[in-house]
């Protein structure tokens, strides 16, 4: 058997966006496919609008739960500013996928700091290998904007070596029973958007 090296995925976003649920799904998909898995997040104050990061790693043997800085194969950012903030966690050739969504941090809401006006251009400049996803719009199209985290999972699914059936089986168990169809739709729309990126994708609040 060929050794499968550890793949490193960093998820970033804002408390309340479902970063933790997305990590939960990723971990279980990888486990179902027979990988060793380690995942770590910092929560506790995460529901109060703070920055949230989650580390997800899988391979034949994963020793530690933290993605080393500069070694992420994939950065999955649920918010544009959090994409820019963590772009240098990617390794050369790594892929950045970000949700074209602006959520003001509290210093911006309080008028004490400003949100970068040209965020999409800044992200592209910082990391050329970038895909922009309108995850909130795709989720709304599926039925609820709350499924934006699952649309993001769809968008990155092609970059990971997991079977479509595994994603679906795990998602069915991970989301509330009443929302299974909406979430599966959001996932498919996310996956389709990655295959055929939208002509325009720019960050809005």
């Amino acid at each position, binding site marked *: 058997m060929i050794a499968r090296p550890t793949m490193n995925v960093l998820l970033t976003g804002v408390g309340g966006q479902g970063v933790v649920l997305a990590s939960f799904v990723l971990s279980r998909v990888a486990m179902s496919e027979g990988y060793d898995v380690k995942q770590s997040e910092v929560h*506790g104050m995460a529901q*109060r609008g703070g920055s949230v990061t989650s580390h997800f790693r899988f391979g034949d043997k994963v020793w530690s739960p*933290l993605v080393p800085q500069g070694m992420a194969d994939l950065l999955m950012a649920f918010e544009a*500013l959090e994409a820019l903030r963590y772009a240098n966690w990617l390794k050369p050739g790594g892929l950045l996928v970000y949700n074209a969504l602006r959520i003001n*941090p509290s*210093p911006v*809401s309080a*008028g004490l700091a400003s949100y970068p006006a040209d965020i999409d251009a800044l992200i592209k400049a910082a990391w050329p290998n970038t895909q922009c996803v309108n995850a909130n719009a795709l989720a709304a199209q599926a039925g609820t904007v709350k499924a934006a985290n699952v649309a993001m999972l769809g968008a990155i699914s092609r970059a990971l070596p997991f079977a479509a059936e595994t994603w679906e089986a795990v998602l069915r168990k991970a989301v509330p029973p009443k929302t299974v169809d909406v979430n599966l739709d959001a996932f498919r729309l996310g996956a389709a958007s990655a295959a055929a990126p939208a002509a325009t994708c720019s960050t809005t609040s």
Partner: protein
Amino acid sequence: MTSKVETKEAVEILSGNEAIARGAWEAGVKLAAAYPGTPSTEILESLAEYEDVYCEWSPNEKVAMEVGIGASMAGGRALVCMKHVGLNVAADPFFSSAYVGLEAGMVVVSADDPGMHSSQDEQDNRNYAKFARVPLLEPSDSGEAKEFMVAAYDLSERFDTPVLFRTTTRTSHSQSLVKVGERVETAPVTQLKRNWTKYLMMPANAMVRHPIIEQRVRDLAVYAESSPFNRVEMGDPRVGIITSGAIYGYCREAVPGASFLKLGMTHPLPAKLIAGFRSRVEKLYVVEELDPFLEEAIRLLGIKLDGGKELNTLLGELNARYVAQSLAKAGVPGVNPELLTDLGPVAADLPGRPPTFCPGCSHRGIYVVLKKMKAFVSGDIGCYTMGALPPYNAVHCSTCMGASLSMAHGMTKVMEPLAEGAPVDIRNKPIGIIGDSTFFHSGITSLMDVVYNRGNTLNIIVDNSTTAMTGGQENPGTGKTLLGEPSETVDIPALCRAIGIKRVTTIDPYNLDEVERVLREELAANEPSVVIAGAPCVLQFKIRHPVYQIDSELCTGCKRCLQAGCGALNLYEDAAGDRKVEIMPDQCTGCGVCSQLCRENAITRPEPAEGRGS
């Protein structure tokens, strides 16, 4: 170690905290007690979902520890959990529990927080094991957390000692694969045993116990030599690394080919095992987070080390990259070159994203008013500590759970008294502020002190009917237990009156005029007073009222509403280039605080319904 079930179905992915709960359940634990505290909270939340285990949120960690000691003395296996600083609170019974030992196993989990993700310090609680003379276990991932927890109860009973089980944020809050097993049923408890020379710690008995405790440490050190918790993994004999906990994983990644002595039991240490490892490697390093706990103990054994704390840091968390760089700098061969590359530049001048009050939070109005009054506020531990952050900047000190009221009292006792008849100096009369759960934890005794010792401070209790910062746990004021049973609710105003507070006022924290009027009145009083700002947590109780909106014609862009520091408000430039504020309807919960700050009457609610606000 316990038997492992080797079927694929019996592998689950669990967080370290869930794995600890699973291990306690498998070990036949009968009782678990804790006070919530990040990163320990989910242990009891998870264990409460299993049948056959009594679980409770105690009002504080000291009480939880005593409940656990009682259960263990009665003959039921007990688990007690807390964050690192919680063990300071519980230290008194913890030290005595080490003297008395137990009838049935007791494990004390201390979840430490290197890096202070959500704590006021980063003390290394491994020191408590040495200090209290108890064995110390440190799992490195969830799989070990479960295995170690089951084994900890056998260790506890074999050596008649409580076991300190130390995790960190990275073991508690990381998920990894766990082989799960079945529950071991322990004997039913039907009778209380009398053994007062062992269980009653008065000087005559304690003097008998102390030499037994010191012998126990020596016996444990012998056990450590062959304990399954410790193992040698020989690789490149040029480099030996002694490590423990999550750091083991970082070291395996940093120097993949090295030889390792991986310690799962880190007090007392196995002297012969370490000396033997020393003799098999050319250079020997200790890599550990925070204090040089292992290093100092190993050096005291007379074993030569080639590098320890001087290669890394006393501060914060380690990670694989940091470990690799520090060892490479020391000339260690075989360091993973991928971890030594230069990083790309960090995007400059990005606004930070600190945690803040949720839109609609009942604490917001209090801090808007306190800031306006330029009051000095003695704070406490909870969501309301965030009143110290911009734009409020309205909390001026905070040390530990329950300290707000007593620190304010201490301040007034050294300040010069006002001249007879002089008006109160609002800027220099400290106000204590404390949440409901923290008040129950250790604020009640502080308030008693204020009354008993003739203080005159204003004490605000922000009662949101939950333990909010840790995710909304029940407490003695919520009317419900951890197991979901209905319970009595502490009547806070009646409790304050019973203590001897004569001025007890309850206010609506969303009504800014009322908040300011009452606070000014109570500050002027020359006797202690309590103001209870009671309104349920919007996050926990999912409270939403009809949303407000801003009339862009009336908005002058003065930014006065932004003093509320609410995430639902957004400053923007309109097509004409004028500065305006808008309300994001999916964020707004209709609390009305911003509308009370607006002087232009631009913020209104289209359908004034029942509920909050003006």
